[in-house]
């Protein structure tokens, strides 16, 4: 019978059928971060269990760490509270850790792919909803709660209900001023934040094939904001050349075996999806969110809708009030106080290179505090080898230490109440970046332009003007 990529990975991992919709699946990788990892490890200790295969799990701190230059464990009250316990529990449970001083430390969803830990055909779980990012490697990867992470660690399995299948084909050449972030924000605004609920989404089509691995990761990362827990992209030559030579990528014969295994995990030509859509991305323009859900997004040049969608009247009014905006407002020209560039969405080297091109020779506007935080220690050192940190610092940006930083404010760092922040992260929820903070999600280019101008810019016009 013809199968999709997702179904093939699923079927390879079935340890036992549980009921008509659910299976007990083998888990190949369990990632624990300093918040949900600590909570899951505590749960495990309390119940008196040990991980079945601690050597297939890894602890990576990212959420609670301060991002100020030269930070230590004590630089944030949150990491001071969580890190000792995270480290001690990891040790007691035998789980290896990429600690603060490790060159492999970083945001879990940046580190997994870049170290070669997340490989095509694997099942990957982490107590974090953006685990779908690793789907860009051709893996089945999804976020779980602490009870499920604890279950995964204790049994190396997880009970899962089989989702429906959806394929989104992206076709056409991307406008040169548009980034992967704009494409996925566009999809969320067009289809809605609940659109993918109950589905595993496979991205395919000429645009996806043409994308670099880091762009694919951005697309998969924000798929949970489209409502789906799973995003997956078939592995191809780009995947293998990205993986080759990385620390945990298998070497020699094993790498050849992995490639031929992954080659079999492609969606069959006659496989059937429960839903299939094709989107022409050649017309997509730079995007920016105006409200408090990622679906409340418009083109940077557009106006906020005059009227809410049916059934969303309250949500629309609440969003406008929180963001201090009015129906029909334009966002371009709006004064901003903060810019944050980084996170598991857009904190990789290609993102930083793009920002450097824009800000080189310019300076952050007066009254704006702008941060660039690399997604991992490796991204940081690569960027510094290229001298990007000098460009950023000369332009008045803070060049931070790797971690989740301002994305969720889990480390105590916040945007002040009422301040407006253009952020390359994935959530603009009420209070996400701090109580009363107003978040506008956008691409690294749009964020960089806003930092320099002190106002939200028309990305297309500004970039064209530079040519």
């Amino acid at each position, binding site marked *: 019978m013809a199968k999709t990529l997702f179904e093939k990975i699923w079927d390879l991992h079935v*340890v*036992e059928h*549980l*009921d008509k919709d*659910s299976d*007990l699946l*083998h888990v*190949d990788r369990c990632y624990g971060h300093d*918040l*949900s990892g600590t909570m899951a490890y505590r749960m495990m200790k309390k119940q008196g*269990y040990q991980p*079945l295969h601690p*050597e297939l799990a*890894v602890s990576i701190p990212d959420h609670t760490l301060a991002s100020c230059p030269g930070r230590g464990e004590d630089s944030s009250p949150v990491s001071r*509270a969580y890190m000792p316990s995270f480290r001690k529990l990891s040790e007691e449970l035998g789980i*290896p850790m990429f600690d603060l001083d490790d060159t492999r430390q970083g945001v879990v969803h940046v580190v997994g792919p870049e170290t070669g830990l997340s490989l095509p*055909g*694997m099942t990957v779980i982490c*107590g*974090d*909803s953006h685990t779908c990012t690793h789907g860009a490697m051709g893996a089945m990867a*999804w*976020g*779980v*709660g602490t*009870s*499920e992470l604890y*279950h995964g660690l*204790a*049994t*190396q399995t997880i*009970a899962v209900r089989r*989702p429906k299948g959806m394929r989104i084909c992206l076709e056409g050449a991307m406008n040169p001023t548009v980034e992967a972030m704009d494409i996925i924000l566009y999809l969320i605004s067009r289809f809605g*934040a*609940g659109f993918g*609920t*109950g589905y595993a989404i496979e991205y395919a089509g000429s645009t996806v094939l043409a994308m670099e691995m880091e762009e694919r990761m951005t697309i998969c990362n924000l798929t949970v*904001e489209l*409502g*789906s*827990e799973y995003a997956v992209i078939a592995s191809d030559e780009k995947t293998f050349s990205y993986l080759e030579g990385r620390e*945990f990528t*298998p*070497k*020699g014969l094993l790498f050849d*075996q*992995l490639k031929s295994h992954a080659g079999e995990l492609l969606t069959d030509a006659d496989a059937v999806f429960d839903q299939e859509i094709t989107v022409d991305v050649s017309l997509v323009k730079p995007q920016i969110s105006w409200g408090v*859900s990622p679906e409340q997004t418009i083109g940077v040049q557009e106006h906020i809708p005059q009227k809410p969608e049916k059934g969303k009247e*309250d*949500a629309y009014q*609440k969003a406008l009030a929180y963001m201090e905006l009015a129906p029909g407002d334009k966002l371009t020209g709006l004064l901003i106080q903060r810019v944050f560039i980084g996170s598991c969405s857009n904190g990789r080297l290609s993102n930083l290179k793009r920002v450097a091109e824009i800000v080189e020779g310019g300076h952050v506007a007066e009254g704006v505090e702008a941060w660039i935080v690399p997604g991992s220690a490796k991204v940081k050192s690569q960027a510094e080898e290229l001298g990007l940190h000098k460009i950023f610092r000369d332009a008045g940006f803070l060049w931070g230490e790797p971690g989740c930083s301002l994305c*969720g*404010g889990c480390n*105590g760092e916040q945007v002040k109440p009422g301040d407006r922040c253009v952020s390359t992260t994935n*959530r603009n*929820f*009420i*209070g*996400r970046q701090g*109580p009363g903070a107003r978040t506008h999600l956008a691409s690294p280019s749009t964020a960089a332009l806003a930092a320099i101008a002190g106002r939200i810019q028309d990305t297309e016009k500004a970039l064209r003007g530079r040519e």
Partner: protein
Amino acid sequence: MEKRKVIQSVAAPLLLPNIDTDIIAPMKRILFHGDEIWNYGFEPLRFLDKEARLPNPDFPLNQEKYRGARILLCGENFGCGSSRENAPEAMAGMGIRCVVGTTFGGIFFKNCVNQGILPIKVKKEDFDEMAELSRQGKEMIVDLEEQKITLATGREICFSIEERQKYMLMEGLDNVGITLEKKGRILDFEQKDREARPWVYLPITKAKGDGGNI
């Protein structure tokens, strides 16, 4: 975990779409008050002044009519966002035993079961009828064993739930104990799988730079 069989209660309607888990369990409170997260459940909606804990009269669970409600009627895509299990934990601590909606955030839906909350998906028209009855302050009965909801009008609505989730909720069990009874089967699977995909089992503890050259 407490056993759940029949839940009879008024259903409190929280009908805003896309209520995310940041709202249900604010991060700042998780970090420093994680052991009593229920005190801060829905904080941005529940209080007019968070520090003074001044109740917001618009928040259904603050209203006399819905005081002590054990069932929550949830707007579209309820529980989207972060995977934090503190969200259903907070709700459980506030007395919620059952959530009913048309669509839920997928991770939240599963986390509910692990926190002893029965999550139920229903059709839009059934949901709208429940919302109307709840506005009138009418009770409903959720029978997990029979998998049906009985409305105040007497109309019955069946719902589906995965067998293992039903079992967990009915018996108040921890999933890990159940799965570990199958350890032999898991190890058998791995033995075969090691031959097919040996790279999966290379320990992450291997020395740096070695990369599993076996």
